[in-house]
């Protein structure tokens, strides 16, 4: 988003390069990230991270992988809504949502290359199988789902270059593809929670629960919805598009339901495990736990329960932002805060870790902007294109458009 300050709808048009504030921010993050990359791949993990034997997983797992996958959950949520549940009114926002998901998963894979001690062995799970390992399952699902997302995204590219044969093929397998995508997402979104089930004695009771897979899955749906609201609002602002307000209001309504479901399950779980009393015992974990509850559940539920807030673009936007921040806090708590007590280590990422993460986030925004500039992501742009092209293309347009989604 940051990159495209130029008008849209004119692919490959030569535009003069101008420095804007966001471009400078991007270039700074890119430079810092590349320098950190150099350190990571010339001196190893020890020199480039604050990880240790006591704290082997840091921000690259917590944020880049756990939060990355979570923030990309809009893809499966929206494709299921539109294609399986046949809610056509959501159709207009499906392309940017798939783009967000696809970029998200690509960037998760990029982050993994930094975090893995021997990244060149990343393909090993393909042939060295251990079906008892959650990590193995996550690896397979993420790999397959990234392929599914590439295929779900491909019509946008195929359409841009008018490759109709390939388009027709992708269209013909679209529904099985969407179903496969939803199943794979359900599996690995929940499995990221299952990763932590094997460490009951290490993870703080606020966050260790036999229901971790359920919590991770439900929160992924909530975040998928919130991310779609966030991304649509931002796009409308930066690309000068008409805000799809009725769609976002509907997403807001569903979000309230998912959040309530999550909140009730979470509360029941805490009550059954006898952890409620810990919630009023001041301490490091307690503060971060309350921060998470406030951002992810309490404030958004108060806001979104009001019809006025649900109807206003600003209200929806800020509720979505709160949900995103809240569940990012949740993932960081599960993977970092919850382990600081049992390991006796206080982990804070090194600048190199932050620089790599910052660069990856910046790349996400930049690639989104580039994609919007050069590909038919938004409906308006798409319409302009269709008019400009020949009658034959216009006739086949319905087929094409739908194939994309």
């Amino acid at each position, binding site marked *: 988003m940051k990159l495209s300050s130029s008008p849209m709808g004119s692919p490959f048009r030569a535009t003069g390069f101008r420095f804007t504030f966001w471009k400078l921010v991007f270039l700074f993050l890119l430079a810092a990230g590349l320098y950190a990359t150099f350190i990571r791949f010339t001196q190893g993990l020890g020199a480039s991270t604050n990880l240790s034997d006591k704290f082997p997983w840091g921000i690259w797992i917590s944020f880049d992988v756990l939060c990355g996958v979570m923030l990309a959950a809009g893809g499966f949520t929206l494709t299921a809504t539109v294609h399986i549940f046949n809610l056509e009114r959501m159709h207009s926002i499906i392309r940017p949502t798939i783009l967000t998901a696809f970029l998200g998963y690509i960037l998760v894979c990029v982050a993994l290359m930094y*975090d893995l*001690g021997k990244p060149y*062995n990343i393909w090993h799970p393909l042939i060295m199988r251990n079906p*008892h390992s*959650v990590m193995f399952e996550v690896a397979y699902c993420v790999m397959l789902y990234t392929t599914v997302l590439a295929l779900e995204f491909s019509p946008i590219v195929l359409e841009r270059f008018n490759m109709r044969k390939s388009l027709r093929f992708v269209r013909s397998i679209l529904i099985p593809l969407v179903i496969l995508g939803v199943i794979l997402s359900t599996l690995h979104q929940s499995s990221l929670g299952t990763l932590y089930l094997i460490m009951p004695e290490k993870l703080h009771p606020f966050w260790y629960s036999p229901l971790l897979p359920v919590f991770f899955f439900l929160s992924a749906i909530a975040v998928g919805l919130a991310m779609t609201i966030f991304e649509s609002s931002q796009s409308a602002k930066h690309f000068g598009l008409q805000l799809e307000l009725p769609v976002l209001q509907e997403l807001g309504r569903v979000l309230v339901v998912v959040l309530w479901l999550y909140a009730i399950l979470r509360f029941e779980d805490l009550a059954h495990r006898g952890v409620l009393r810990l919630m009023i015992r001041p301490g490091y974990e307690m503060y971060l736990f309350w921060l998470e509850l406030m951002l992810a559940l309490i404030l958004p539920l108060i806001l979104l329960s009001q019809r006025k807030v649900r109807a206003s673009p600003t209200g929806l936007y800020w509720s979505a932002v709160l949900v995103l921040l809240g569940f990012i806090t949740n993932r960081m708590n599960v993977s970092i805060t919850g382990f600081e007590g049992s390991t006796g280590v206080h982990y804070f990422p090194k600048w190199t870790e932050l620089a790599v993460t910052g660069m990856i986030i910046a790349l996400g925004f930049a690639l989104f902007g580039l994609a919007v500039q050069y590909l038919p992501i938004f409906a308006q742009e798409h319409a302009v294109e269709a008019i400009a092209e020949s009658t034959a293309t216009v006739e086949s347009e319905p087929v094409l458009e*739908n194939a994309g989604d």
Partner: protein
Amino acid sequence: MSRALLYDSTVCIGCRQCEQACASQNKLPYDDSIAAEEQQSAHKLTCIVTRGDKFMRRLCMNCNEPSCASVCPVGAMQKTALGPVIYDASKCMGCRYCMVACPFSVPKYEWGKLIPKVEKCTMCPDRVAAGKQTACAEICPTGATKFGERDDLIADAQQRIRDNPGKYVNHIYGLQEVGGTSVLLLSAVPFETFGYRSGLGKDPLPMLTYRVLSRIPDFVPLGGMALGGIWWITHRREEVALSEGRKPAQKKDDNKTGRKP
């Protein structure tokens, strides 16, 4: 059939010859400064922990149902029938899930290296396979570390506790912890003194994940059927509406053709 180590801390004199033998067996450096380190690391696979006049060994417990082997996505960690939990660095991709998952926090990493591997005591698998004792048990001058059949060692440990009332904590650490381990410990003072976790259950930890994972083969076809069914119903409604000449709600004309399979 399964071999094990029994370490009786009341017999140990803290001479650290086990540390030295372990280092030379695993081709790791050993000198005075390394001897002074009282924690396991990538270059020190076993260590003697001193608390007052009491000693305790720390090493990989070589669990009967190891978390590390269960979580490793590429099967680089394996439990062998003879007892040792071995590691194949060529398979490892460095995800470090084994380090996070181990209930004893045993696996260590070569953080300083560009191409790092996990390091842990592997219970001298080659020696054990050849019918020999582990290096640490062979060198031990007092017999504090004893190598043998796991069942025999358990009987021996129980005998020692029975014959010396008051001398030991009435607990064989590793007999039942996380489903039992191939390293058994006896101590005169509570094991927590030396950083051993108390309160580890008797159930093997890999069961906690497997309970969830084992549902996947059922979930995939059922989930697929359910989603396919919902798709069929939602679209069938539309078809019926169309054929009856009603206009289905919220329908964009240009999307009609595309959604039919």
